[in-house]
């Protein structure tokens, strides 16, 4: 009797400049496997159906509980985290591809640096250091705290950007994740003291006005962050700032 197996079809790329190619793998079935454990099994003795001793598949991962975002890849055509993609719940053969909106480092590992540059650009932090003791910050209402908690769950995984038709490799769009962080830090009572600086950063090329409201981001977000509410809210904040700048400055 033949042994039950798991079949995987993986899009591979040896280095950032080389051409991608496909390889198929077959590993013994184990109950409760996820995509990461399959990749680990391949790593033990990397071989395709007709070729022994191929290079092991490279991927990125860390927390294995969907809070770090580093194992994000395209699984069966849809972007998600590999750690929570359970083999028993997804179609076979399992097709794995690296995200298409970021430069591939190798195989399934991509460089999401553009996302972190976006966070720096929009000043996604609360300034607490000054030349003198700033004292305690203002008190935050619990309703604001609750809203901010949801927004703070963003793990910069890139799902929203992979699904976004407006985010492409050859433009400078900042994307839903960065806009939502502007909302997060503008909602913070101390962060709000620098609200205008954050808004200015999203009122240019690649900024909030470039959003085409396809709203694929909110569907793709694994953390169910209300990204489209954030986009509309930042749209309002920037619209008001535009009117204020035109009329009052």
């Amino acid at each position, binding site marked *: 009797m033949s042994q039950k197996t798991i079949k995987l079809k993986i899009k591979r790329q040896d280095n950032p400049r080389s051409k991608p190619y496909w390889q198929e793998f077959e590993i013994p079935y184990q109950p409760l496997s996820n995509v990461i454990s399959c990749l680990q099994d391949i790593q033990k003795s990397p071989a395709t159906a007709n070729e022994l001793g191929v290079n092991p598949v490279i991927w990125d991962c860390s927390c294995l509980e969907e809070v770090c975002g580093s194992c994000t890849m395209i699984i069966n055509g849809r972007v998600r985290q590999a750690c929570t993609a359970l083999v028993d719940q997804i179609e076979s053969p399992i097709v794995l591809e690296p995200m298409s909106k970021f430069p591939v480092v190798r195989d399934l590992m991509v460089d999401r640096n553009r996302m972190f540059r976006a966070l720096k650009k929009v000043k996604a932090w609360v300034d607490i250091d000054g030349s003198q003791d700033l004292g305690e910050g203002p008190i935050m209402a619990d309703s604001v705290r609750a809203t901010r908690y949801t927004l703070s769950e963003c793990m910069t995984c890139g799902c929203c950007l992979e699904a976004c038709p407006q985010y492409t490799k050859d433009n400078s769009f900042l994307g839903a994740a960065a806009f939502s962080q502007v909302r997060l830090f503008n909602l913070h009572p101390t962060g709000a003291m620098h609200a205008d600086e954050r808004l200015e950063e999203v009122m240019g090329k690649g900024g909030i006005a470039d959003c085409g*409201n396809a709203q694929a981001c909110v569907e793709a977000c694994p953390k169910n962050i209300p990204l489209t509410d954030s986009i509309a809210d930042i749209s309002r904040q920037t*619209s008001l700032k535009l009117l204020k700048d035109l009329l009052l400055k």
Partner: protein
Amino acid sequence: MAKITQDQAHFLLLKINSLMGLIPIGVFLAFHLGINALRTVGPLQYQLSIDLINNLPFLFGIEIAFIYAPLLFHSMMGFYIYFSGKRNVGHYGYPRNWRYTLQRITGLIVFAFLIYHLGTTVAPKIFYGKHQFLAAPFLMDIMNAEFQTWSGRIIYLIGISSATFHFANGLWGFCVSWGIIIGQNAQRNASIVFAMVGLVLTFLGFATVLEFSLNPIPVTPTVGE
């Protein structure tokens, strides 16, 4: 006046583009389809509305400032927006993503349709110098002839429905892009209201096409000749 940076200009142009879809282009579309629907009341009523428009003071200036220049700006920005994204409904076929794609496709269709529409109405009107009371019989003859062929009818039905979809969906986009509606419920409710606006405008347009197709009645100038 402070010098405007490239980033500020980019932001401002996109915001104005979104607003311009509503004012004046959307308002013009609603008036255009509404007034044309007078044809369903009768050829005389329709003729009087064309007479009124073609006897407006500074008509050429009004047309340039409120119709042609905004349309040209909206079209050029539209092409820029079209090429700034890469549609992906194949992988992520969510309803809103479909509407994003359709908004861009209908924009292209309406652009092509307007070239045809202006080429068969406004261009000959100016070329043959049919102004004031001479405009109505001239234009109505053109429309009567155009709606006698199925190709003419289909071109108009596609053009009108693309324009009304683009406007109704664009109204929703304008409200989100300017931050007028924010929450998910508000966005859903607004999309229902704007869908109804779009359906009413589509009905007006289709009724006019039907009337022209069934009753191609020629008219003589109200005054003069």
